[in-house]
């Protein structure tokens, strides 16, 4: 990062500087403080910006994103994709303008429109061209991030149906450690950790059973989550029966052991939500064979 570059950026942002001053400061940082050129340049830019009371605008990131398919989205890439907005959520963060789900025939993904993005308000049911949005992870879930470098325009693309669910058949490679018998907080339903809720402290837990497993279909691995009802159906026991087993054996892991014996190492067919998400909720699971 040279002095010319620094001066160039500052000029673009309406901050006038002396060439010699910039050069002197840069070489001082590099020689005396042993900073590398990029760090030195950035430090200097921040100093000048702060003194001028401005936020710097950089050029060069308005690059056209590559066109992509929903199920091929790679973390960290900038993409252009036509999607139909199917759901809008409450934005829980003050810097989020809009948040929702958008998809096409090959699946869906969460999108987030951040403050600072110069884009129109999107509406449910419409198809938009999401241009130059970045694929990244928020709380470990993949999403499309619409920021100040992105553009959203109305699209003529016809997207008939965005599937809610998809069916996958795969090999159960493992039953997750947190699968099986758990106790939930009566206030917020979150699983308790050592008898306490992270939000509500020590509470009287509600018993529950769930199944969390990893399925490998030869192309991808999926983290599948089954709720109480589905778990009861698969295991052919109720939560109350499971609670009795845990009491009799004094082993909370006994329910997970039963799940391992039942499902690990076999093929299952699962109908799951069609989303690019870390965990997929299943609405139906059928083990193959083994009657």
């Amino acid at each position, binding site marked *: 990062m040279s002095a010319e570059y620094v001066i160039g950026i500052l000029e673009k942002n309406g901050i006038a500087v002396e060439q010699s001053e910039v050069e002197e400061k840069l070489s001082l940082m590099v020689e005396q403080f042993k900073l590398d050129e990029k760090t030195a340049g950035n430090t200097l830019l921040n100093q000048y910006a702060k003194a001028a009371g401005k936020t710097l605008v950089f050029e060069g990131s308005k690059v056209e994103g590559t066109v992509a398919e929903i199920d091929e989205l790679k973390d960290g890439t900038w993409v252009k994709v036509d999607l139909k907005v199917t759901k809008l959520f409450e934005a829980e963060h003050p810097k989020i303008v809009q948040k929702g789900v958008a998809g096409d025939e090959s699946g869906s993904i969460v999108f987030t429109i951040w403050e600072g993005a110069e884009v129109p308000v999107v509406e449910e049911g419409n198809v938009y061209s999401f241009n130059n949005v970045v694929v990244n992870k928020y709380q470990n879930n993949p999403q499309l991030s619409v920021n100040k470098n992105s553009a959203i325009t109305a699209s003529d693309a016809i997207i008939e149906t965005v599937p809610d669910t998809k069916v996958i*058949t795969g*090999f159960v*490679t*493992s039953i*997750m450690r947190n699968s099986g018998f758990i106790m939930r907080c009566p206030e917020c339903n979150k699983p308790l950790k050592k008898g306490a809720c992270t939000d509500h402290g020590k509470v009287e837990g509600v018993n529950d059973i769930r199944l969390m497993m*990893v399925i*490998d279909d*030869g*192309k*991808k*691995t999926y983290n599948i989550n089954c709720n109480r009802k589905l778990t009861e159906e698969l295991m052919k026991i109720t939560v109350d029966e499971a609670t009795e087993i845990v009491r009799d054996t004094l082993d909370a892991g006994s329910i997970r052991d039963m799940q391992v014996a039942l499902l*690990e*190492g*076999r*093929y299952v067919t699962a109908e799951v939500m069609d989303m690019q998400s870390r965990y997929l909720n299943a609405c139906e699971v059928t083990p*193959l*064979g*083994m009657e």
Partner: protein
Amino acid sequence: MSEEYNPVAARLTVEEMKNIIDEEIVPIKGLDNGAKMFTTETLAKVNRVITVAALLSVEDKGESTPFFVAKLADPTGSIQINAGQYQPEAAANLAHFEEKIASTGMPVMVSIMGKLSTFTTDDGKTLTSIRADKVHEVDSVNQNHFLGEVKEHLAKRLQNPELSADVAEKYEKVMAKL
């Protein structure tokens, strides 16, 4: 192993497992150790394997700690699988199957999840075995589904233009056995 690193397991024929032409260490994001990646003669890159095949025999060859050595066979050939003190679940199940085979005189159909391991003998031969992490008994419906997956994956591998004509021809014949 961190839960994040969960690569897809290869669907190979035993014949492919026994013909490894290369191995390398691949770094895993977030871990100090790397993963051993083998290349089969059909140019498949393998770290984890899944197989559903017939368990023919099981023997505990361990001295102070259990070390199970078993013979596994699919329609293309047989291979040795091992499970020792560091694979307790697999070892326990293999012990159970040893009894079952002894009492019924018949093989047991099992699914195996594990990793390939190679050993070079004094006369330069490379022997492949599977270090089994998980072993479970399954039925023929599961085996048929697995063989369907193997056929699909092998067919894709045979379309690789980098395969030599000899290897391609050999595996056309192997495919017919599935």
